[in-house]
């Protein structure tokens, strides 16, 4: 099996899955019905991406694990998502800050992955990039609206950006697994998109009358399975039924 590709697909798929799970926690809790609808849209897109990416990962692995087996029967340390997406929702500003940073990173990455030499991955990326472009726009709109809204919303939005900024660098880090795939033309070096990321973020943050305060000690480890304390509690809830009834199908 192509171990590097398997790992890479887990990283991409787990990002989608974990963030989708966080968005599910918003159900019925949004500030307006319209926002509830749009958060569900984001969640649905991400669940769909997780299905495709983890499904493909399972095929690459060739051990008979499908997307549900991978989603529901791996422990936290086997998850490969970046730390940003597993962070708790916080208030609506934090949720939007998280979604804003992730979606811009992801849109730029998927844009490149459309040209992957792995055609299956390229196809998934082509579908996902459209969805993600919408995510990035929606989140950017909210960052601007909240940043340039009231005094309170400005403060909360700035706090949200500050809170999550330490998780940004991890998304652009490359390790041996990816290095190999980049050379093979399968994966994309996220570093090539960093400049565009910074430009996009800066532009939105400026329109929002906010500022970016870079952190000096970025947090990393998610891609290698070293997560924050939040992932295992999230998975305890998410996986409870398949873990409790391993012989059942649903």
């Amino acid at each position, binding site marked *: 099996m192509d171990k590097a590709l398997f790992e890479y697909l887990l990283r991409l798929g787990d990002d989608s899955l974990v963030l989708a799970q966080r968005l599910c926690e918003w159900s*019925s809790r949004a500030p307006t019905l319209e*926002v509830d609808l749009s958060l569900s849209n984001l969640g649905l897109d991400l669940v769909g991406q997780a299905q495709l990416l983890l499904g493909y990962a399972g095929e690459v692995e060739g051990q008979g694990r499908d997307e549900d087996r991978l989603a529901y029967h791996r422990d936290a340390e086997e998850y490969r998502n970046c730390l940003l997406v597993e962070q708790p929702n916080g208030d*609506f500003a934090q949720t939007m800050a998280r979604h804003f940073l992730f979606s811009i990173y992801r849109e730029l990455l998927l844009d490149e992955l459309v040209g992957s030499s792995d055609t299956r991955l390229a196809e998934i990326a082509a579908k996902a990039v459209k969805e993600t472009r919408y995510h990035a726009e929606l989140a950017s709109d909210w960052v601007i609206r909240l940043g340039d809204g009231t005094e309170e919303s400005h403060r909360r939005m700035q706090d949200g950006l500050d809170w999550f900024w330490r998780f940004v660098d991890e998304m652009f880090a490359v390790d041996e697994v990816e290095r190999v795939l980049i050379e093979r033309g399968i994966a994309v070096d996220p570093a090539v998109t960093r400049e565009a990321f910074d430009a996009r973020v800066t532009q939105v943050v400026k329109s929002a009358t906010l500022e970016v305060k870079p952190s000096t000690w970025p947090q990393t480890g998610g891609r290698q399975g070293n997560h924050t304390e939040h992932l295992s509690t999230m998975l305890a809830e998410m996986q409870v039924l398949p873990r409790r009834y391993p012989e059942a199908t649903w």
Partner: protein
Amino acid sequence: PQQLARFEARVAADDFIEPNDWMPETYRKTLVRQMSQHAHSEIVGMLPEGNWLTRAPSLSRKAILLAKIQDEAGHGLYLYCAAETLGVSREQMIDALHDGSAKYSTIFNYPTLNWADIGAIGWLVDGAAIMNQVPLQRTSYGPYARAMVRICKEESFHQRQGFELMMHMVNGTPDQREMAQDALNRFWWPSLMMFGPPDDKSPNTERSMRWRIKRDTNDDLRQKFVDATVPQAELLGLTVPDPNLRWNEERGHYDFSPIDWEEFYAVVRGEGPVAQERMQARRKAWDDGAWVREAAASYETKHASARIAA
């Protein structure tokens, strides 16, 4: 009186009344009450299902449930918009929900306790809702009727999905089968109560039927629901929790036990098992979101005046 006669004639001819048409004040009020109650039911109804969203046991079940809850939010939105055409604002309706003066379907004051409840809600609750709502596609108020057309289509999709989930559970492990039976046990009677009080306790039925706001009596619809659902339960191999349930050849209908109306009225009064939790959850979401709504409004104002100034 001439206006009233003309109005009643139009309604009797199955014409649609539109927002700018003349209508009796009682008609308007009854409609606002009924439509907002229906909208609230969609919104509150998101909660019992949302309770299992983070625990949905497969990715496709999670997607289906998320989409279903999203549809309900959408239904709430159409219905609030349709009601707004009658001169009441969404905020007013939501305030009435939160202060307890507006009602919503009693069924959502029961808890969801296992995964099969998600199936049971689709199968029974959406099933009952459809019985109530299909006739409303031809209700006399145009915006309401049109909202119902779209809603009914989605509801019947939900109902099929719910039944499919139940079918999957009964064909699963013994644990799963037990969950399905347990869900039916808990949701059967509350579903029958969804059709409202018995006809002899439903004083406005006659007028509402004349005005085509309602097209069948509560008891008729309830019977129709029982007749349609019992064979489905048999198909699932589940036992309806009613020892007196049997086919009555003579009536051409199923007989069933009398309903515990004391429970029904208690639940209507907001004393259902999780009624307080449901209202607390709705109020909390609304209160927690106040600063977001204010920010969005403030942003709009700023930039609208900027546009005007430019």
